[in-house]
C-alpha cells in the first residue's frame, strides 16, 4: 500500500512530553455538540452545567490523554484537533492533523494521535511531541472508527464506504489486512484480552466480531429490539466493562442501548433512551452509563444495575461524544 508523506524516524522519548500537573478528578462530564461548536461541561453529581467551552467547528470525537489532564477534541469542519486543559476548562492548543478529522485514538503511551480524515480517506499518525504528522496511510473512503491496540503495534480503521476494517502496522505503516465486515462500519471495541475486535455496522444493523489473531470475522451479533424494523436499527457506539463481561451498544434510530453478554454473545436487554443514540461512556465504578442522543439534543443517564434511565438532561445541539473525568 502506498504510504503518504515521509516516515520520520521514531524517537522514543524516555519522559512524557507534555507532563502537566497531575490531574485531579473533577467529576466533570464533557459532551461535544456538533452544531453548536462547543463542548458542554456538566458536573456529574449535580448534572448542572459548569460551562460551555468554545471549540473549532463541528467537534465530534473526544478522548482524554492517559492522565486525564488534557482532552482532545476532533473538530471536523475546523480541520483541527483542539486540546482542552481539563483543569482550566479552556482550549489551550489546536493541532493541524489534516483535513476533516472525525475520530481518533491515542497511542497507549499518549504520544501519538491516530486520526481518521473523513474527506481524504486517510489515517494520519500525528506526533504530539513534535506536533507533526509522521505518516499518512491511504484507506477506504470515509474512514471513521480508529482503535490503537494496547501493545502499540496495530491500529484499526473502519471505512464506512468500503465496508472494510483496515489493519495497519504502526512500524511499517503498511496495511496488514483488509477485513470485509457488515455495511457502513462505524466504531470499535476491543475485548480486554485483546483477542476480539468488535465493529458496529450501522446499516447492517449488527456488530461483527473479528478474531485479532486471524483477522477474520468469526461471529455477528444482530439486534432486534421490540417494535423496530431492521431499517431503524443502526448500531454505532460501543463500550465494554473492564472485566470484559458486558458490552453496551447504542442502536441509533432504534433509540435503545443494547446490553450484550460478551461471552455468550446474547443480547440481555434493551434500554430505551433518547432519539438517535450514538455516544456513550461508563463511569469508573461502571454503575452509570451516559448516552448522547443526537436528534433529541439530550443525554440519558442509565443505571447499569437496574438498566433504567435515571434521568435525562438537555445538552448542546446534536450531542455527539460524552466522556467523564472521574
Amino acid at each position, binding site marked *: 500500500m502506498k504510504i503518504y508523506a515521509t516516515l520520520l524516524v521514531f524517537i522514543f522519548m524516555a519522559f512524557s512530553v507534555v507532563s502537566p500537573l497531575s490531574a485531579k478528578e473533577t467529576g466533570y462530564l464533557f459532551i461535544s455538540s456538533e452544531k453548536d461548536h462547543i463542548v458542554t461541561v456538566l458536573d456529574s453529581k449535580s448534572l448542572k452545567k459548569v460551562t460551555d467551552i468554545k471549540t473549532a467547528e463541528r467537534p465530534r470525537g473526544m478522548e482524554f490523554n492517559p492522565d486525564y489532564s488534557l482532552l482532545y477534541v476532533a473538530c471536523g469542519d475546523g480541520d483541527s484537533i483542539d486540546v482542552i486543559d481539563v483543569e482550566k476548562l479552556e482550549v489551550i492548543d489546536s493541532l493541524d492533523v489534516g483535513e476533516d478529522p472525525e475520530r481518533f485514538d491515542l497511542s497507549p503511551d499518549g504520544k501519538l494521535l491516530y486520526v481518521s480524515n*473523513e*474527506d481524504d480517506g486517510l489515517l494520519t499518525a500525528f506526533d504530539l511531541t513534535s506536533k507533526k504528522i509522521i505518516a499518512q496511510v491511504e*484507506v*477506504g*473512503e*470515509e474512514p471513521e472508527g480508529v482503535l490503537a491496540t494496547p501493545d502499540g503495534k496495530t491500529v484499526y480503521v473502519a*471505512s*464506512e*464506504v*468500503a*465496508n*472494510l476494517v*483496515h489493519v495497519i502496522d504502526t512500524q511499517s505503516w503498511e496495511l496488514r489486512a*483488509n*477485513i*470485509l465486515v457488515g*455495511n*457502513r462500519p462505524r466504531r470499535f471495541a476491543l475485548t480486554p484480552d485483546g483477542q476480539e475486535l468488535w465493529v458496529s455496522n450501522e*446499516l*447492517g*444493523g449488527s456488530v461483527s466480531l473479528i478474531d485479532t489473531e486471524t483477522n477474520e470475522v468469526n461471529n455477528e451479533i444482530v439486534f432486534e429490539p421490540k417494535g423496530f*424494523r*431492521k*431499517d431503524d436499527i443502526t448500531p454505532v457506539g460501543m463500550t465494554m466493562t473492564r472485566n470484559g463481561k458486558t458490552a453496551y451498544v447504542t442502536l441509533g434510530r432504534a433509540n435503545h442501548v443494547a446490553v450484550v453478554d460478551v461471552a455468550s454473545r446474547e443480547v440481555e436487554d434493551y434500554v430505551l433512551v433518547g432519539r438517535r443514540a450514538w455516544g456513550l461512556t461508563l463511569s469508573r465504578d461502571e454503575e452509570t452509563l451516559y448516552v448522547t442522543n443526537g436528534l433529541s439534543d439530550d443525554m440519558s443517564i442509565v443505571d447499569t444495575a437496574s438498566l433504567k434511565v435515571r434521568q435525562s438532561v438537555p445538552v448542546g445541539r446534536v450531542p455527539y461524544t460524552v466522556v467523564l473525568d472521574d
Partner: protein
Amino acid sequence: MLSLSTAYCDEKTLVIGYLELEDDSRYIEERMDARYQAQPWGRPYAGAEVAIKESRFSGSAAGVKFELKRQSVSARGALEPAVKSFNEQGIQLILLDLPADDVSALAKATRDMNVLLFNIGATDNTLRQQQCQPHLMHTAPSDAMLTDALGQFLVSRKWREVLVLKGPKPGDSALLESLEGSAKRFGLELMDAREFVLGRDPRNRSQNNISLLTANEDYDAVIVLDSEGEFARSVPYQTQKPRPVAGSAGLVPDWWHWSFDRFGAPQLNGRFTKHAERPMTGYDWAAWIAVKTIVEAVVRTSSSDFNKLVDYMRGPDIVLDGFKGKRLSYRSWDNQLRQPILLTTYNWVIDSAPFDGFLHTTNNLDTLGADQKDSACAFSKN
C-alpha cells in the same frame, strides 16, 4: 462467467458497460446551463466514475478491480449492436443512460441475451409496469415514487386541495396520470388540471400567463407538471393566490440533492464535486448506485458468476448504502430500487419520504411507487 482478465498481482478486472447517445436532447447546453430542478446537470457518467473510485479497497479485498467501458452511439439503431458487442467482449453488466423509449426498445430486443441492464435515468412508470423486463433494473425512481412522495408530503401538511398545471408533452401527461394515482392513494383532491403552453402570444394568454392560469379557484397548493422544466421554473411567486408551488419547480421530489447534509451525503457530494466540477444530481446518484450494486454483489458473493450475481442483486439479502439513511434493495416484482425520495427546494432538502404515518406491512419504502399488489409488471409475458 463474466470476462475476468488478470490485471496485476492476482487481481481480476470486471468491466461494466456504459451506453449513451451522442446526441441526447436532455444534455443540450442550454438545458445544462439552466439547471432545472430534478433534471440532469451533466452526463451522469461522472457518478459511475466516482463509484468505481470508491470500489478500490473493497474490490481489492475481494481480488477484483472494477472498470468502466463507455460507449456513445450516434444513432438509435446502433444501440442493440452495441449491447451485442459488449456481450461478445464478456461485458454483461451495462448501465443505460437513455431516454425511456430507447430503454424500452433496447430491453425488449436484448431479452434473450445474457446481460443485465441498469436504467439510470428514465423515470417513466410504464418501464416498470407494462414494459418491464426481467433483465432491466431501475436505479432512478419511477414517476409514481416521485408523485407519491409529493402526495405524502402535501397530505401530511394537510394541503389537500391542489390546482394542477400541466404541459402539452407526452411526458407531462404521463406525470399527470402518475399524480392522479398518488392523489387517489393518499387522498389529495385535484381541483382542476389546466394545460399550459410556453410562449408570450397574447391571444393564448389564458394558457401562457401564470396569473390567469391560477385564477378562479381556491386551492392549498399548485402542482406544476413539466417534464422539461422551462415553464415550471417561472411558476413560483407568479400565482394568483399566495400559495406554495410544487412538482417540477418550487418543492420538487428528487432522489438526490447537492445540499443534503445527512447520512454521509456531504462526503459523497464532496467527492462528486471534486471529480466532476459541478454539483451532484439524482441522475448522477442513479449511475453511482448502479455501480455500487454491482460492487456489493461481487464483494458479498465473492463470485464473478453472472447468474449468481444477478440473483444476489435481485434477491432479498442485498443491503445497499445509498447515503439516504435506509437499507436499499430491489423490488422483486419490477426490479425497481426502493429508496427514500427527498423533497427539495433550490438549495435545501426540506424532508424525506416516506413520512411518519405512511406505513407498509413489510417495508415503509414500498409506500412509494407501485407495490406488489398494484404492479402491472409480468416478467414472463413481455
